């Protein structure tokens, strides 16, 4: 399906504003002192949550595009990925500055000795590299290496989710859900599984489904 450029531009603007909403809410709550007893923890958790969520949404673009045969979805992927990086940057900044008070000694011990922080840091470095090389110019310059480099987004997703899983004390529901989504998104990319689902969701199958539904609703009308 082709979508006019004008619509893509409007879509991008709307998506940009939508992706900013969690950050604006966070800023609003901080200014209103509505972040609770432990505002630094609230900032850390909420920025981290949104980074992982946006990264998973970014990883969902390719499967969605193929399942729905809507090629234009790809044009929103870079912005989603950059917002995942934006929230990771916010998360990392809050950690360095507000949580650890820029105490580099403590921070380096954390990164070197605490596995969940190590993984989170590595995920952040990957996202940083991908963000820096996300421009059209960089794509051109890197050529075929660009897509190889950007395969690392899968590692960032995995490390990000494990980073969350490893810091939890007893309630694994939210990180567990993210891990499940991550695994499903990876399975889409595993050859045979991908093809089977593609067939199941091909436009033919969808057309059949919609005609069945239409018959059903008209019979009942």
């Amino acid at each position, binding site marked *: 399906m082709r979508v006019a450029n004008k619509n893509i531009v409007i879509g991008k603007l709307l998506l940009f504003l939508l992706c900013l909403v969690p950050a604006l809410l966070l800023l609003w709550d901080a200014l209103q002192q509505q972040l*609770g*007893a*432990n505002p630094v923890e609230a900032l850390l958790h909420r920025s981290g949550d949104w980074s992982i969520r946006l990264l998973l949404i970014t990883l969902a673009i390719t499967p969605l595009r193929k399942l729905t045969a809507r090629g234009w979805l790809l044009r929103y992927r870079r912005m989603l990925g950059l917002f995942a990086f934006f929230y990771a940057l916010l998360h990392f900044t809050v950690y360095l500055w507000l949580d650890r*008070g820029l105490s580099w000694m403590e921070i380096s*011990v*954390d990164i070197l000795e605490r*596995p969940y922080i190590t993984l989170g840091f590595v995920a952040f470095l990957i996202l940083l590299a991908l963000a820096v090389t996300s421009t059209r110019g960089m794509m051109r310059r890197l050529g075929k290496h660009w897509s190889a480099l950007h395969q690392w987004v899968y590692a960032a997703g995995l490390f990000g989710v494990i980073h969350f899983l490893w810091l939890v004390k*007893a309630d694994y529901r939210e990180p567990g859900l993210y891990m499940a989504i991550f695994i499903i998104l990876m399975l889409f990319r595993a050859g045979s599984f991908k093809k089977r689902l593609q067939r199941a969701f091909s436009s033919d199958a969808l057309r059949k489904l919609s005609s069945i539904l239409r018959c059903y609703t008209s019979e009942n009308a």
Partner: protein
Amino acid sequence: MLIRKTSGIRSSEITSQSIFNQRREFLKSGIYAFAGLAMPDLALALADKPGKLKPIANLHPSKYRVDAEVTDYKWITTYNNFTEFGHGKSTPAKTARKFKTRPWTVEVDGECEKPGKIDIEEILSSFTQEERIYRFRCVEAWSMVVPWVGFPLGDLLKQFKPTSKAKYVVFETLHDPKRMPNQRYDGLDWPYREGLRMDEAMHPLTILSTGLYGEILPNQNGAPLRLVVPWKYGFKSIKSIVKISFSEKQPPTTWNGKAPDEYGFFANVNPKVDHPRWSQAKHRVLGGGIFSGREKTRMFNGYADEVASLYRGMNLKNNF
């Protein structure tokens, strides 16, 4: 003998306590509503002060008061780890609202001469209720300063005459998934269990707490009766206790059983022994705001003078 009438006021004219309180509430809510129009935060802050729960009768001051700013009531009552009422710090304040804490009895058994039961009302009336302002340090590296109300645990234990075999004291939280909704799901091995060595239990700093800020305990803080051991990480201070037993052996305890490498049986606050996943050298004092930074954690949470002798000769790294 002449019995003089003290006043001309008929008893029917005297405003009952409950009506008086209702009026106070009415006036207060009016003030809040007015303030709320102009400043929602102020209204919220006022509503988050104590004054809604029953005051503790005959509250005595005590010498145990740390020289630090007491944490706001609203932070102590909205930032709770009480897994029986859900995960997430702010969840228990909402889900424990309807929790009924009367009637409530505590059963005491095990290695003692006089096992039996004691009712919460008897606990409130027969032990001198003191205000104890303690530092409270969570294993998650945050802390508060809490004005508890309570009495020495030892005072209660002595009534049941523990025998020479009693080496440990074991505590159990209520197990009733109908009243504690999160007990329907796993997460922890219910009921929550904790334990102390006999000398720790008999230490004058160790209290059974019945209240907070001069009133009975809010549900989310472990009503109606909880343990407070100020030199240990918060998870030792078990909430909503229904059972206390004397035991010859060290009992299995909840968090220690779940992750033995992360949560020790002793769980003494110790800045030199890190949690495997995070440092214990510093903690964040709650209520300080975004830019408050962390403070250095002290050995035994600052109670080393009082309790260090309990652990003389013990390797505190191995017995963390």
